[in-house]
């Protein structure tokens, strides 16, 4: 049973909390100690909007352990509005085929359970096609 890794990652997993570098201003996800752009310390938390678009994608039919119950599922590289590329599952895709450039938004969903039905439920970010509004904004 693993608890600590999941507990440590909860803010980024539930809510796309990354960082903005105080030195060069770049937005980082996931958060890290050193800014990969300027090499200085990155520490200011930044809550990403969750909006982005599909940069690339693939469909998984032969999943890693723990994801069997969700197959087949689509994994995408999502280009966030703020810049970073995030790897995540797509969900609620419906009948519309996923395409490069499809606008998506972050949702918090169940990722898997730790071990069997006695284990921790692990939640985190996925992306879905942007919910269509029936009325003009």
């Amino acid at each position, binding site marked *: 049973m693993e608890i600590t890794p999941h507990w440590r990652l*909860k*803010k980024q997993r*539930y*809510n796309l909390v990354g960082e903005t570098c105080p030195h060069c201003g770049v937005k980082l996800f996931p958060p890290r100690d050193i800014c990969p752009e300027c090499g200085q310390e990155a520490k200011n938390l930044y*809550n990403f909007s969750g909006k982005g678009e599909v940069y690339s994608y693939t469909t998984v039919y032969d999943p890693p352990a723990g994801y069997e*119950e*969700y197959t087949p599922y689509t994994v995408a590289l999502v280009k966030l509005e703020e810049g970073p590329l995030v790897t995540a*599952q797509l*969900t*609620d895709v*419906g*009948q519309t085929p996923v395409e490069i450039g499809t606008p998506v938004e972050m*949702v*918090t*969903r*169940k*990722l898997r359970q730790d071990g069997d039905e006695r284990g921790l*439920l692990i*939640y985190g970010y*996925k992306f879905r096609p942007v*919910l*269509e*509004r*029936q*009325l003009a*904004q």
Partner: protein
Amino acid sequence: MAENILLKPTHPVGIVGYGAYVPRYRLPATEVSRIWTDGKGGIPIKEKAVPGLDEDVVTMSIEAARNALGRAGIDPTEIRAVWVGSESHPYAVKPTSTLVAEAIGAVPNVQAADWEFACKAGTEAMVAAIGFVGSQMARYALAVGMDTAQGKPGDALEYTAGAGGAAYLLGPAEESLAVIDHTYSFVTDTPDFWRRAYQKYPEHGQRFTGDPAYFKHIYEAGSTLLEATDTTPEDYKYAVFHQPNTKFPQRVGAMLGFSKEQIETGLLVPVIGNTYAGSAIIGLTAVLDVAEPGDRIMMVSFGSGAGSDAFAITVTDATLERRNQAPRTQDYIARRTEIDYATYARMRGKLVMK
């Protein structure tokens, strides 16, 4: 009648923000009858909403809560209570509410608890939140009613046991898009529906769920609220009742003197099913999506076991600028993927895997 039966806080309270959630999958009732009755007999609704493989009361509550926050436009660290009512909490022991509070950024200076009272756990949390805000212990409190209802295969409830619900951010009346004028609760020990510990599916009392349970409690709660507030059905533009099927809310509405036009906007059960702890309150989100300033709304929930919470609500001018700041209830209803019974059986964990 005793004068102090209405629940009214010291300081006026209202709905600062609200949000709905309905998952995208739909099981037509004809699919249930195709499997279990050879397609014969009537069906109680058109279709019900089914949660995706990665959805549960935690994830659905988070989305509804984010929608409520989107409309309220407040800093989530000002919320002092996150209360989630459901009969399908994913854990037997571990709060749904701590996960929701963490995901919306309301931790750590917050109360968090899960509520349980069958289908009125959500309104129970709302009434408690009104007290919390109305006593000025808290500026804001979030109450959620959400379910992924359990229906035994082949049982009458399998047609209707749906998924969805709503979140309400309660706060000071002067900041509200709708003011809670009064509430009244009517509760007795009436065993019409239950699920024992460790049981997967609930039991119900067949026809006993009607007159002594649903109709008695909603009628008493609704008629007492009307009498105690010196109002009549004509004073309300809309009425919303707990909706386990299409007929019950229509009948109890007529018993109380409400017209079909008053209840149709909030009557969602034909297209999403019975969302249990979310049932009455997602009807209310559909009404708030379209109600105009000054409109009055009556809502009466029902929870088996049994009891009803009745609310008298008045919409304010703030609704006009806030209701479009998050998806409307009908946006979720229009997002629809139809599934067959086999897919439903897989999605709801009805296949034995080991």
